[in-house]
């Protein structure tokens, strides 16, 4: 037995850690993360803000600062309409995605539903598909001359909807964004104490009353959180407004930026900067509002005591209606448009006026694979997604560690910085980074400008909040005493992280990898500015092909992207599951 004699010094003294410049290893790491995040986040914001006060393009010498751009923006004809349409679009999108997702989350998670697991998975599908692709799909099916529309018009004699309107845009966008709301609500529902419902049941409440009086009121925090997220995402979304709104003259913020920045006869950079600054302001205040609302909403959260096993409610005949509603959403919202898109990719022309089977072809794919630039764009997308996913996940992990598991003085700043890109529209990230790279010191900009690295930085920045968001709940689930135990037994912060937390967070890290990979693969809006001849990606190629009129090839590329995503998500899922079993 080891003797513990009083006088002797400890048999095994704790290790000494070096402290260069009086700062421990963790200090260096933590300041490093803070600095990196700050540079990344400020790089696009500072030039944008600067431009918004400058009376001429940044690249021209002799600019004078002033508020003239804002004055011009607000006095510009039609800007009021843009603001109004944006508000309408964002508001309606938010409401619709709540209407779709909240009841579904409740039904799927909390009730006995035939095929509930399938539906739970299916509800996520639209998330994996970029809204650009979904938009194309919707036009093919529900546009004024879409397959479904033509059929409906033939039967009814008129078309009861108009896709090229704000409600039409909002509905499409809502279908694309509903999975976000669903994910938050389903998560909250899974966590919350099931005995709250059991208590209502025993008191005599039937299923409907339980839904109304207990479940729905308790969903307030996730609803607030996700609806603000959805609102800020729909303020910045480009694809659907561009595809649907353009022909009928509906302008929202993002298309306003796009048209005035990229397509205008005479781009006014000052006004562009001012409009970007305003979008930034709006989204930032939305995110701030969300933080505030959520803080107050803490008292609604009631996860306490021994976790009770959830008992799903039985809805009776209502469950069949729910099944039908969910099936309708998945089929009409995602499956049919996407099926149409895939079908489109195998035909020459795709029109209700002529049987598509007449012109079946593999040409659309052939075109993509004969031009090296197109193949390159697929490869580029994969590279950007893969490299970006790894980098973003690593950075997210570090940021989460610093923000949530350290005594770092600026821990909150790290968290805020990591979440800030949530409020930065893709186009603005693109424009801002473009300028930032142009002005970067030591010729760094020219090393990066126009290469895939520029895309990786731009896309990665946009994916950072998802990475952070997917890792940070997991770290909250790992008891702090696990690191405390390591600290007390002699490990410093860095070692605690590498020896203990890194292994425990591996599943969360894998989850973040998948999520960011998918996000990066479908991202494209910053590339509109950051891309170059050598760095085309699927999204920009798709837009390019669309402009050329090669819709068939657009569909082919979209199908390829969906296939890649599905394969990747499927494989990753299998791998993760396999590993869980081994563990």
């Amino acid at each position, binding site marked *: 037995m080891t003797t513990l004699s009083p006088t002797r010094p400890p048999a095994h003294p704790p290790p000494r850690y070096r402290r260069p410049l009086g700062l421990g290893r963790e200090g260096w790491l933590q300041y490093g993360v803070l600095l990196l995040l700050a540079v990344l986040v400020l790089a696009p914001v500072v030039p944008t803000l600067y431009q918004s006060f400058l009376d001429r393009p940044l690249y021209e010498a002799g600019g004078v600062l002033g508020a003239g751009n804002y004055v011009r923006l607000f006095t510009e004809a039609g800007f009021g309409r843009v603001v109004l349409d944006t508000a309408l679009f964002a508001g309606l999108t938010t409401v619709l995605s709540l209407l779709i997702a909240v009841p579904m989350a409740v039904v799927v998670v909390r009730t006995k539903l035939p095929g509930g697991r399938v539906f739970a998975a299916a509800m996520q599908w639209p998330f994996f598909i970029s809204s650009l692709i979904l938009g194309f799909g919707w036009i093919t099916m529900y546009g004024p001359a879409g397959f479904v529309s033509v059929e409906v018009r033939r039967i009814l004699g008129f078309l009861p909807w108009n896709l090229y309107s704000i409600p039409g845009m909002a509905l499409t966008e809502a279908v694309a964004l509903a999975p976000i709301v669903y994910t938050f609500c389903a998560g909250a529902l899974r966590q919350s104490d099931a005995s709250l419902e059991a208590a209502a049941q025993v008191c005599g409440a039937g299923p409907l009353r339980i839904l109304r009086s207990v479940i729905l009121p308790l969903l307030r925090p996730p609803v607030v959180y996700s609806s603000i997220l959805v609102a800020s995402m729909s303020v910045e979304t480009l694809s659907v407004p561009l595809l649907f709104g353009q022909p009928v003259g509906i302008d929202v913020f993002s298309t306003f930026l796009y048209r005035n920045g990229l*397509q205008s006869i005479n781009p006014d950079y000052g006004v562009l900067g001012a409009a970007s600054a305003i979008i930034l302001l709006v989204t930032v205040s939305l995110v701030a509002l969300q933080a505030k609302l959520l803080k107050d909403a803490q008292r609604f959260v009631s996860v306490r005591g021994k976790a009770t096993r959830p008992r799903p409610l039985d809805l009776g005949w209502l469950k069949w209606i729910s099944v039908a509603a969910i099936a309708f959403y998945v089929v009409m919202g995602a499956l049919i448009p996407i099926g149409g898109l895939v079908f489109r990719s195998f035909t020459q022309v795709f029109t209700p006026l002529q049987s598509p089977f007449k012109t079946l072809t593999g040409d659309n794919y052939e075109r993509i694979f004969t031009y090296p630039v197109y193949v390159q764009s697929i490869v580029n997308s994969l590279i950007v997604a893969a490299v970006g996913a790894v980098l973003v996940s690593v950075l997210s992990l570090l940021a989460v560690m610093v923000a949530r598991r350290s005594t770092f003085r600026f821990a909150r700043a790290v968290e805020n910085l990591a979440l800030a890109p949530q409020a930065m529209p893709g186009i603005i990230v693109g424009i801002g980074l473009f300028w930032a790279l142009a002005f970067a010191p030591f010729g760094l900009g020219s090393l990066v400008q126009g290469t895939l690295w520029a895309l990786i930085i731009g896309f990665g920045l946009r994916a950072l909040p998802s990475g952070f968001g997917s890792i940070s709940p997991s770290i909250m689930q790992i008891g702090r005493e696990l690191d405390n135990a390591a600290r007390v037994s002699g490990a410093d912060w860095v070692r605690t992280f590498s020896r203990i937390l890194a292994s425990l967070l591996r599943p969360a890290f894998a989850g973040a990898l998948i999520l960011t990979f998918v996000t990066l693969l479908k991202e494209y809006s910053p590339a509109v500015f950051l891309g170059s001849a050598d760095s085309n990606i699927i999204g920009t190629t798709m837009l390019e092909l669309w402009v050329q009129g090669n819709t068939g090839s657009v569909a082919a590329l979209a199908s390829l992207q969906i296939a890649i995503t599905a394969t990747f998500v499927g494989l990753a899922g299998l791998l993760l599951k396999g590993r869980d079993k081994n563990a």
Partner: protein
Amino acid sequence: GGGGEAAKAPPPNRIATGQAPSYYPADYARLMEASRKEGGTLTIYSNTDQENWAPIFRDFQKKYPWVTKLAANNLDSDEVFQRVLSEQATGSSPADLVVSNAAQAWADFAARPGTLTEYASPEKDKLPDFGELLPHVYAMSIDPLSIAYNTSLLPGKPTGLKSLAAILAKDPAQYKSKITTRDVSGAFGFTVSHAFAEARPESWASLQSVLPLARPETSSGTQMEKIISGEYVAGFFVSAAPAYPVVAKSGGLLAISFLDDGTVALPRGIGIAAGAPHPATSKLFVDFVLSQEGQRAVAEGGLTSYRDDVPAADGLHTYQELVKAVGEANVIVARYTKVPDAEVESFTDKWNGLLGR
């Protein structure tokens, strides 16, 4: 008209590898030598599709085999210039060549000092007078704009704007929102619409009856896709270049015709950027594109060539073909001049007013 022809492959383009035409200056070999030393790379900022570039690149590489890496991006028409300007302002730009059909932007760009490398091409004398659009900016192609229509939905074959107006006039209510044109808020749409209206002031009469039925689109591709699907029945100022292959594939559903009351042809400008990293190769490229061999490749890529010594053939479209179809007098070649802001505003207001937006 170019409608309904089958996509037969044209005969292969014959290229004289490494040989300059006889009329080139004697020291042209030195230029080739300089190019060889530049490492065989060339970067083009363009708003031109990969498919248009493909045969040009293929043949250029055949001619000068040391050129191994040719890259052209496909940006929006103005962005081409904004990119170059920003990059030039902050140091070096990787751009060698600038290719765009944005007339306004070209005029603005070329007017700035120190944006272009001065170069007098030895091909200059072999070209028609619109071959040099601005000093040191040459026309790579001259692309006509057409009327495209859905043959199963539009009764009759519109041969011009007036004829289209006449067809629509039979039942304006039915064609409400069924016609498409180019968005004049965009550079391309403005240039072609403005050129047309300026050259044919009398056509406002037709426009007044057609535009209220129309919706603007921002690309020819979208216009054609929607005409095929039946969302629109016809569109005017649809680029012919991307339309040819679609017409061929559509199985007769889509047809195009040139406007007998004035077909706008928009030149595509090419110029060498100031401080181009590969100036010699850039010069070789400009000369090649303007040469007979190069113009032949331009036509093969789907753009419209304009040299007399390039014959029209299956799958090759030429300026001469257009002239034959509508007559020299009815071809309106858009000019590369800057339209004053006030004029831009009054024109777009008038146009958009007719569109009802």
